[in-house]
């Protein structure tokens, strides 16, 4: 797969079909995967692909808007939802991006892997997809780990856009399926089932840890406002100090601003340096929007986002 990808990128760069290509490469240690910007054919051999290629790279497409030419992007099917949404939200023209789809059979959650292995990620040399399992090389030993033990939560409910117009694919790109005994909104429903006071205590404990580094916002494809509301000084909605009430406001407002646009890529939760389970907050809105308005972000080009739409017979609990 990697060879195919590298050859394709060399070809596309040679043709002048794109100014640079955005993919994945190895970081400071084997298990650390980071974004790779290939500006020259000679760099194409840095590109890799595997179950640790966790990032959703679509955000980078926005900074390429000022280029004369196109930009190339490697996407998993789930990431392609961001492209659909960016086009729908009039943030990019579809033909500015050369989208290369890669078949994905599920990604590894490093935290889960560390727990199952009992060793830190720095000792993991390689992770290879092997059908129902991952082959994990730890030191000189290769261990077989059942996928369901270490799969990222979102991979259990893999969603791709209904039919996406990849410019190139490295194989058949289709949603990954696995038998699991959890339901998509289990974590949300668990919280919904708690008494109000306990829910409040849970979220306050989470928001207290927030240091307002804004990483969740910067990594989110949907946060592209030229001037973010949280940076405005007139009116000043939010103060800088990471006090609990300010943090609460930040997360609630960001969640609602992304309502109907969040594609559940999980980047916000993954990059949070203090491990706030942001996914649960955003998943709650996804659940409500799916149930109330029968809509999921990033699935189709021609559906209207739910918050700029209405039905005459929308649910109306207000008197």
């Amino acid at each position: 797969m990697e060879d195919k990808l590298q050859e394709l990128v060399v070809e596309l760069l040679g043709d002048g079909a794109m100014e640079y290509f955005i993919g994945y490469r190895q970081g400071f240690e084997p298990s650390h995967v980071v974004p790779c910007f290939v500006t020259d054919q000679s760099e194409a051999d840095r590109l890799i692909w595997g179950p640790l290629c966790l990032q959703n790279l679509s955000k980078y497409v926005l900074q390429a808007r000022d280029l004369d030419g196109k930009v190339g992007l490697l996407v998993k099917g789930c990431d392609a939802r961001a492209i659909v949404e960016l086009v729908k939200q009039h943030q990019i023209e579809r033909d500015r991006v050369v989208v290369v789809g890669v078949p994905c059979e599920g990604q590894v959650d490093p935290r889960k892997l560390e727990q199952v292995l009992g060793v830190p990620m720095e000792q993991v040399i390689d992770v290879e997809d092997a059908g129902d399992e991952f082959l994990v090389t730890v030191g000189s030993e290769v261990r077989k780990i059942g996928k369901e033990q270490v799969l990222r939560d979102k991979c259990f409910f893999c969603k791709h856009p209904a039919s996406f117009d990849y410019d190139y694919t490295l194989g058949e790109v289709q949603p990954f399926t696995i038998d699991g005994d959890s339901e998509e909104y289990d974590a949300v429903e668990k919280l919904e089932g708690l008494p109000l006071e306990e829910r409040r205590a849970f979220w306050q404990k989470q928001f207290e840890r927030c240091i307002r580094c804004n990483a969740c916002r910067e990594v989110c494809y949907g946060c592209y406002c030229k001037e973010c509301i949280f940076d405005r000084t007139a009116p000043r909605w939010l103060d800088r100090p990471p006090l609990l009430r300010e943090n609460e406001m930040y997360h609630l407002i960001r969640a609602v601003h992304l309502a109907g646009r969040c594609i559940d890529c999980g980047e916000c939760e993954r990059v949070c340096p203090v491990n706030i389970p942001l996914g649960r907050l955003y998943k709650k809105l996804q659940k409500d929007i799916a149930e109330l308005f029968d809509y999921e972000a990033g699935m189709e080009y021609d559906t209207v986002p739910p918050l700029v739409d209405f039905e005459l017979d929308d649910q109306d609990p207000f008197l």
Partner: protein
Amino acid sequence: MDRQKISKADLGRWLDTIAGKYELIGPTEDEDIIQFGPVQSSAELTLDYANSLIPPKSLFFPPVESLFAFRKRGKEIQLEETKPLQQDRVIFGIRNCDVGSLSLLDRVFCDDLEDSYYRERRERTTLIALACPTPPRSSCFCTTFGIDPLSPAGSDILLTDVGDVYLVDAVTDKGEKLVALGEDLFVSLTEGEEKELQPPPVDMPQLDVGGLRERLETLWEDEYWDKLSLPCLGCGICTYVCPTCHCFDISDVGSTADGVRYRCWDSCMYNDFALMVSGVNPRPSKRERTRNRYFHKFSTFPSRYGTGYACVGCARCLVHCPGGVEITEVIKDISAKEGVSDR
């Protein structure tokens, strides 16, 4: 004070005695994260860690702190100062990279422009450093910047794990005072033990930083920064996990009649960090901001404060950067003899 030892079983007892007289702060685990926080007893501490995520600079220069409160009563303004500490403190478990960072932060907060909040915290805190488990994490590179993971320099006490016991080096008065609290728990080493009980030597790859600053200073206009800044998201994580970063913002919360003035962390990687009221932004794009970051660490900070490089090799930034920008790569790139390598 001569080198002593304390058994692992007794460490907890000593720390509990300390907790009775001081605010004891040490590494705790919550939600898979290691943080330095106050504990009531040693049982709440964890010893199974490489380092904390948020560096212990947060204990001297907190993410948010109130400076003072103000109230207007008629024409009069009443100010109420904040007391930084309620009690003297002991920080247990700090690593030598973070100890090194405090020496750098001291230049900023204690030299010609004294910051009373930081200073009080520094003076009223005793540091018990814990030598790094060998081998250190694969990402560590503190020795590149002259830091020795096994030296007590900069701390008050250094504990080194050598199997069943910790070696104890109390090198300041504050440190000796704490050891005295433990009394019979500490035993001087015999001559034989002095030779026998040695930690394994530190085996850490060392980067070549000779001439780094000089070479960097020739690269201000280089294209290297355009390429380097491409994956940067401007998220600020690097600043928030860096033990030597110290930029802050000050803002008032409340109303003009009744409020609190706060100081909180800020990051030069944000777009609006240097933005001026006139609309002019001296660092308008990621290119300038990324360049600024590395220049600050390797050129402007050393020049301003007469120190070595403002990096302690803790590797937090490169581990946590979502864009994969790695300071070690930057150092190698800049140091490459033929000029900057093609990344």
